[in-house]
């Protein structure tokens, strides 16, 4: 309980809404650029790495719920659990020292991507019939035409796109943390772990 209170200090509390806004603003910009991924969890990963796993999980959960409940993209709300898992994994990875150089961040991102594909496939298959409404549906169609059923096809689609997405996100977060002044990082519970 005490460590949880330390994780949610005032600076963390102020960082979380900023991170949520970063998720939504960048996710939307990437959507405009028509790139084959989302980059909608950079803020979540940033909080996980700087503040800890629970703060990261809360950021991910609230990002998708706010995205859905404000009516901007209701299709994102059911994936709130996936976003929470990503934030938690980012926090745990940072504690283990796996985000401390660009190549470690890259590998961590790939691993987190595979896990997030596994968590999101059942949601995508059950709630949305296995489609995303985006260009990635061509991949789902391909796996389906090979004879895969709905759940494996959505997992295969996620396993192809999510690791790249999360690897880019983790490397970007590493870049950002390196660019932050030491004095600023020291205000966060895990800020001094990454050097």
């Amino acid at each position, binding site marked *: 309980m005490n460590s949880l209170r330390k994780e949610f200090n005032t600076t963390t509390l102020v960082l979380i*809404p900023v991170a949520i806004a970063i998720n939504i603003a960048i996710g939307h910009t990437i959507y405009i650029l028509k790139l*084959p991924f989302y*980059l909608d969890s950079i803020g979540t990963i940033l909080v996980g790495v700087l503040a800890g796993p629970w703060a990261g999980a809360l950021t991910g959960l609230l990002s998708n719920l706010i995205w859905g409940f404000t009516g*901007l993209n209701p*299709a994102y709300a059911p994936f709130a659990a996936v976003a929470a898992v990503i934030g938690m994994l980012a926090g745990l990875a940072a504690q283990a020292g796996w985000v401390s150089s660009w190549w470690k961040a890259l590998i961590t991102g790939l691993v987190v991507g595979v896990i997030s594909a596994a968590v999101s496939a059942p949601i995508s298959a059950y709630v*949305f019939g296995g489609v995303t409404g985006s260009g990635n549906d061509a991949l789902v169609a391909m796996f389906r035409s090979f004879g895969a059923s709905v759940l494996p096809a959505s997992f295969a689609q996620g396993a192809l796109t999510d690791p790249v997405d999360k690897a*880019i996100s983790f490397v970007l977060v590493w870049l950002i943390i390196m660019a932050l002044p030491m004095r600023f990082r020291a205000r966060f519970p895990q800020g001094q772990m990454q050097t």
Partner: protein
Amino acid sequence: MSEQFSIFQSRPSRLHALHPVTKLVLTFCLLAAALLLPGLWTNYLLFALAILPLATLGQVTGPLLRAVWPTVLPFAISVFLIQGIIYPHGTPLFSLGPLTLKREGLLLAISGTGRILMVVSNFILFALITRPDTLMLSLVQRGVPGGLAYIVVASIQLVPRFRARAAAILDAQHARGLETTGSLRRRLSAIVPLVVPLILSSLVDVEERALAIEARAFNHPGPKTSLIEITEAGWERPARWLLLLTVPVSLGLRLWLG
């Protein structure tokens, strides 16, 4: 009142006058029904018999349909193409060249589209009739930590500012000759000069804001007064419990009828 990132529409309706927690319970029950109830056309029926009458009561039918349509249509097209035509081993209904519409795939597509329609329209209806700040205030009055309410309301207020800032950075980098159209490689290389300045500039004021809210007794444990008052009719409390009873009923129907 600052601009809010929310599609809330203010109307003098009885639906709007409900307590935010009642609206939340209603949304939750409809979501549970949409995901649990069996049957091919159930969700279309729910949409016609629950969502549309509620939207009419709240005088938001127009905005609801305008918001639901562009979200559901791409899903519907995808799900019909992918499930209807590429379903691996099904009974063919009719063929058009190399494409064959399969019966099982079509059924899957119909129920899938219905579920998406209900999930999306349910969230949008909630967003249209609920002010985010009164919702969070009502939750704090019920014992949700104030920090959580701060996070939600602050993010909702920050998003439009951030999207404006992202657009400004995009314009600035365009002016410096950054290409954001064309080949995939060119668009990929545009990510770093867009994302890194946006995040660094927004992190700058985190520290300042932390000091500001601490100086305004944010962490003080005692009760706080609020500018907004929330009213609740006497019948709303029992009505919420009745609504919640529909969740086990939905689950029961699901288990019983498959």
